[in-house]
């Protein structure tokens, strides 16, 4: 069985690339045809119009397509998360000069940095233009969340410009944007060229932030349970290979291939080893949870995370809030399929489908049907907690910065 899967040239396409290149897919009788796309719009169209069977998708985009917010509406299903965290906000060095010069402190105190950022906006000669990879991306939602914590209105005080990750560095060079938030290795590439400095990393904004998912058209997913299950089994083994530090060099090498990310292996390796260079020429800062593929049941599609995405859509007036939209959004994540596919696999399986997001300050051993499962800390930097059962309270909790 040959499966066509669309992806974008990003470090977190790793699990798909490795499933193909290291034979994990083949062992499940699947041959993966990985189709590189250059924009999320094209990846989305290929999936929605049936040109591919599945796609590496921004989790918020999968929810948005299902809710009919991004061109052609289509019911999408995400039974598997391809990664957690991995994003980085970089700004032009001139702009970053107004932030804490101690780069370690800058990253470890996102709240302080957000306030410095607000001051930096005042000092900048015009509204700073910040590149985001898509309106419906975790990057855009996290950036908005972070800016708003310091009273910055992301729709008024800055200009958010959409551009695909692979064009970010070029746009920086041309002075079309003053900074950007994107998945790796694009932030590191801008730092390496001396164009920008790291200002914030995803992991410090939300310690376990939802990122890319594997998305299917729901009808196709329902009609092909055997193929879906085999693919998920291949991916879970691939993910565990990707998370193993012993394999990081080989993984970076593999992804540097022109068919995948087409960037130098040493830049790609930074996200995997969590060795983040903030300013050109400086020693890296250790950030061990910068990008997760496998541990702590990373691939498990917690419904609460789809609902968090929905809460942010409501917060930023991207969708009209209502019980029907809420139910549809939550149903995009499919823990039921994950459980079915991996029932016999050696994978710790969470006992629940939802959890309170942002409640864990320390690693916690939780109920698991098989093997020990320890969940990592998952706090939001501002200490807010998202209880999916109490959506209304959460929403009224955000005071609009006017």
């Amino acid at each position: 069985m040959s499966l066509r899967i669309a992806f974008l040239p990003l470090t977190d396409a790793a699990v798909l690339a490795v499933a193909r290149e290291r034979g994990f897919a083949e062992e499940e009788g699947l041959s993966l045809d990985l189709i590189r796309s250059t924009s999320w719009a094209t990846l989305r169209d290929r999936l929605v119009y049936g040109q591919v069977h599945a796609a590496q998708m921004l989790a918020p985009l999968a929810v948005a397509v299902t809710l009919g917010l991004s061109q052609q509406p289509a019911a999408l299903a995400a039974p598997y998360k391809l990664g957690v965290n991995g994003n980085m906000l970089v700004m032009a060095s001139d702009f970053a000069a107004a932030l804490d010069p101690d780069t370690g402190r800058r990253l470890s105190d996102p709240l302080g940095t957000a306030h410095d950022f607000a001051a930096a906006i005042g000092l900048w000669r015009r509204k700073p233009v910040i590149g985001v990879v898509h309106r419906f991306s975790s990057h855009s939602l996290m950036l908005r969340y972070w800016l708003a914590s310091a009273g910055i209105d992301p729709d008024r005080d800055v200009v958010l410009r959409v551009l695909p990750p692979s064009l970010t560095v070029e746009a920086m060079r041309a002075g079309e944007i003053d900074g950007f938030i994107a998945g790796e290795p694009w932030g590191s590439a801008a730092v390496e060229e001396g164009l920008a400095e790291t200002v914030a990393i995803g992991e410090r904004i939300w310690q376990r932030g939802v990122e890319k998912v594997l998305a299917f058209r729901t009808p196709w997913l329902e009609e092909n349970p055997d193929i879906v299950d085999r693919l998920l089994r291949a991916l879970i083994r691939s993910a565990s290979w990707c998370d193993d530090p012993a394999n990081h060099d080989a993984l970076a090498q593999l992804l540097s291939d022109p068919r995948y990310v087409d960037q130098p292996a040493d830049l790609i390796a930074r996200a995997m080893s969590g060795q983040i260079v903030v300013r050109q020429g400086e020693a890296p800062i250790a950030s061990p949870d910068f990008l997760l593929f496998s541990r702590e049941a990373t691939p498990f599609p917690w419904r609460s995370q789809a609902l968090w995405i929905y809460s942010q859509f409501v917060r930023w007036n991207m969708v009209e809030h209502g019980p029907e939209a809420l139910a549809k959004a939550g149903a995009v994540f499919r823990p039921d399929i994950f459980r079915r596919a991996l029932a016999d696999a050696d994978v710790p399986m969470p006992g629940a489908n939802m959890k309170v997001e942002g409640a864990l300050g320390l690693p916690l051993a939780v109920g698991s049907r098989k093997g020990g499962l320890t969940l990592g800390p998952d706090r939001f930097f501002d200490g807010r907690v998202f209880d999916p059962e109490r959506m209304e309270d959460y929403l009224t909790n955000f005071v609009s910065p006017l």
Partner: protein
Amino acid sequence: MRIVIIDDSGLRATVLEEGLRDAGYDDIHIVPPRGAFVARLERMAPDVVLMDLGSPSRDTLEEMLMVSRALARPIAMFVDHSDDAMIGAAIDAGVSAYVVDGLRKERVKPVLELAVRRFNAFAKMQTELDEARTALSERKIIDRAKSILMNQRSLSEQDAYALLRSSAMNQGKKIVDVAQALITASDLLGGGL
């Protein structure tokens, strides 16, 4: 009907524009997707926007179509649901079309069909050009290998070629690969030309 073609490749845009003009459309503009192309587009107020599906700037365009206050009528991607073959053909050819709200399907469809045909013709041209280029460079490699053999083993051009061909056949390889190996070996041994 004002048609804007967003395209980086001058040649492809020209091929498409010609086709549209031949078909009687005369309000056509080509905008490369660079710098402030979104602002230019807003000023033009197009009825139809045609764009290469593979262009990385599609996300930027869609965002602008979503938030633009300058455009009088919203623009959305054109899809004819009654016609699956059309959708498939457009995606295969790499065409995406955005159309203003209210423009009738019958008016858009011929434009899209024409774009698909022209994109396909352009892709074919490109492939032929690539093939011609490859053939040319293979020719050069074989010529160089021949002259090495002619010089070092005092063979005639014909015999040099025959030797290359028979070694390729014996090794089950392409002549150009054997020629390349010979050139590399000769360079390594310092006997290159």
